[in-house]
């Protein structure tokens, strides 16, 4: 299964590298949103829960773009049929799509988090960077699993651009609560991350539960 997933992932990343459809749109969306918050809130700097909320809501909305595009090539160019005709474990497609979305999210955050720090954040992010990276990683893993599942669900529907946010955003509410709560003290002036372990455990639990659910049901989603 790993070899099949690697083949699909390599193909997906190569197509994204050439078309530049998902990641540039996600990063541009997030930076634009930060600029809008900058003017909309009429604040030069943010910190604490407000800063954390702005960061995570923006990242999740940017992720919707990536999820919507995740099955685009399979749907528009018949790749899903070719995959279904091959004698492979179909779960490999889930693993590959989740891994591709994880890569998209990491690339998004490489741009969006520094942009957020420059455009909106008051406190210096440097000291809290290791903890923030851990929160980002755990949130990305959960988002990648749920996103790949939702993308597969929406792939065969006509109104997929509508279906993806309608399905995805309610499912990621627990993830948003965990990630935003874990991040808030990290972006506070002199704030101490007392409950960080609790929220990391929440994110880890979310990843495990939704990862297992997605792994279990993905095969059925591909069936006619």
């Amino acid at each position, binding site marked *: 299964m790993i070899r*099949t997933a690697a083949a699909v992932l390599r193909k997906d990343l*190569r*197509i994204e590298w050439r078309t530049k459809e998902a990641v540039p749109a996600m990063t541009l969306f997030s930076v634009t949103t930060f600029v809008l918050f900058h003017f909309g809130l009429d604040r030069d700097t943010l910190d604490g829960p407000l800063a954390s909320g702005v960061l995570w809501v923006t990242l999740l909305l940017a992720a919707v773009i990536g999820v919507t595009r995740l099955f685009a090539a399979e749907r528009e*160019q018949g790749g899903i049929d*070719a995959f279904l*005709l*091959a004698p492979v474990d179909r779960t490999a497609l889930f693993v590959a799509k989740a891994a591709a979305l994880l890569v998209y999210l990491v690339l998004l955050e490489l741009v969006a988090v520094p942009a957020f720090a420059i455009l909106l954040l008051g406190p210096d992010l440097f000291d809290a960077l290791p903890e923030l990276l851990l929160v980002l990683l755990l949130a990305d893993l959960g988002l990648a699993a749920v996103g790949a599942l939702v993308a597969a669900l929406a792939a065969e529907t006509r109104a997929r651009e509508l279906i993806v946010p309608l399905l995805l955003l309610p499912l990621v509410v627990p993830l948003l609560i965990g990630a935003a709560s874990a991040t808030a003290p990290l972006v506070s002036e002199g704030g101490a991350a007392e409950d960080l372990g609790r929220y990391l455990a929440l994110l880890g639990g979310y990843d495990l539960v939704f990862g297992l659910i997605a792994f279990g049901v993905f095969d059925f989603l591909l069936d006619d």
Partner: protein
Amino acid sequence: MAEAAIALEGLERRYGDRLALGGVTLTLAPGATLAVLGSNGAGKTTLLRVLATLLRPHGGATRVLGCPLPADGWRVRGRVGYLGHDPLLYRELSGRENLAYHARLHGLGPATVDERIEAVGLKRRGEDPVRDLSKGMVQRLAVARATLHDPELLLLDEPRANLDPAAADALEPLIGRTAAATRVLVSHDVGGALAEADLALGLRAGRQLFCLPAAAVDASATRELYA
């Protein structure tokens, strides 16, 4: 006696309430060719997709390569070569990259890709993105993709569409009468399809009008199909 390559008994398939295929009954021997005839919307493509395990049959009994569908569909995948309306190729990848991807899915090495690209006459254009190729070249590449794993059963929907006579001749060993596989051939070229078929299935609005030895299909039977 060898087991039939395809055995259908009252095959039925619906899209919602609409019957796309009903009462299709036939037996096709290994190595034989079935020509599927009928006007647009008769159910030809649906039949191919059911045989390819891409669609579930909703009624009747369906056995492909000895395996009952949909229960044993996983045993059929990888033994079938499907050439449909869409080439199932990624436009942004080159022909070689597309075939290499499909080869990996089928557990094949790069040597197979080289050999097949040469066989379809695309050695010089193999590195070009599929979006830059002509329709005929894309069809050649699609044939290479569908036959890459030397399938036992070829499901061919207008396989010579967009091919010039020389390309059609070059692809004969892969998809023609001499291909070492059982074939199901959908074509609007009635005469051509019957000439290379052993058995002919006539479909009209999803219903089987006839299933006869190809040599026994006369002009009146085909006229009724397209009336």
